[in-house]
């Protein structure tokens, strides 16, 4: 956690990331509750479905801001590498799952799980790469 105390770009990243991720969770809960409670139709239903996607855009912008602000090239490359590993893992998972759905009739993959799973894979890749470069 030493880097969190010394690097202003990482600190700003976390100050932005944590509230936006919280906003994502809150938006999910609000959308879920409102859809079950009021059974909206048409434009309102589509609006509620789009609601959790707004913080997702925010997260991507925050990552972009961090990459622009981070002066340490090693840290920047580390984040890019972990994003690529996370991306590779989620795209492979969805592809394999899709084919298994066709061949082995496995349960359909819920598409909204892509975003949380991507960040799980990215977190694992971060831990592995930080351990490797310790």
């Amino acid at each position: 956690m030493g880097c969190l105390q010394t690097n202003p770009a990482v600190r700003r990243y976390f100050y932005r990331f944590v509230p936006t991720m919280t906003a994502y969770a809150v938006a999910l809960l609000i959308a879920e509750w409102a859809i079950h409670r009021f059974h909206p139709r048409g434009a309102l239903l589509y609006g509620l479905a789009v609601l959790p996607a707004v913080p997702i855009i925010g997260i991507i912008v925050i990552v972009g801001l961090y990459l622009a602000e981070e002066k340490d090239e090693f840290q920047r490359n580390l984040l890019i590498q972990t994003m690529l590993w996370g991306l590779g893992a989620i795209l492979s998972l969805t592809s394999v799952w899709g084919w298994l759905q066709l061949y082995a009739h496995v349960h359909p993959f819920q598409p909204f799980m892509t975003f949380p799973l991507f960040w799980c894979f990215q977190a694992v890749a971060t831990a592995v790469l930080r351990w490797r470069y310790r």
Partner: protein
Amino acid sequence: MKESEPSMSWSQRRSPQWLQKTPAARRYAFRLSWAIFAFVVLSFGLSYLSFHGFHPKGIVAYLFAVLPAIAIIATLVSGGMYLGEETDEFQRHLFVQSILWGVGGIMVLTSVWGWLQLYTHIGHFFTIWTFPFFLVFQSVSWQALRWRNR
């Protein structure tokens, strides 16, 4: 007869400045083309087999399902190699930005579709399409960013 310039390729002579590629970007395009070709061949091959009644079971089904994912990993490895080889930091920055837009695009699409799938009669999102959609989002944003910063 006019002598052609041997140092310039056909694409370089015909392309506007902002579309011209660095040597690293050309290598990336070459590797990416092969990886996409492998993905398309494997995907169409598996679809063809599936439509013709080939439904393997157990471990064989899993092995067949993993095949296109190898091509997906190859495309991302080629992206990583491009970032390692590209000497122009600005071009690298544009490429990373385009990956972020690609990730953002696919996350928004799957998230919205997932919710609509649960609460409306919209068809199931076939997850095989995640990778092609990512490639489209990333490629379009890369060219858009290059054009904007031409």
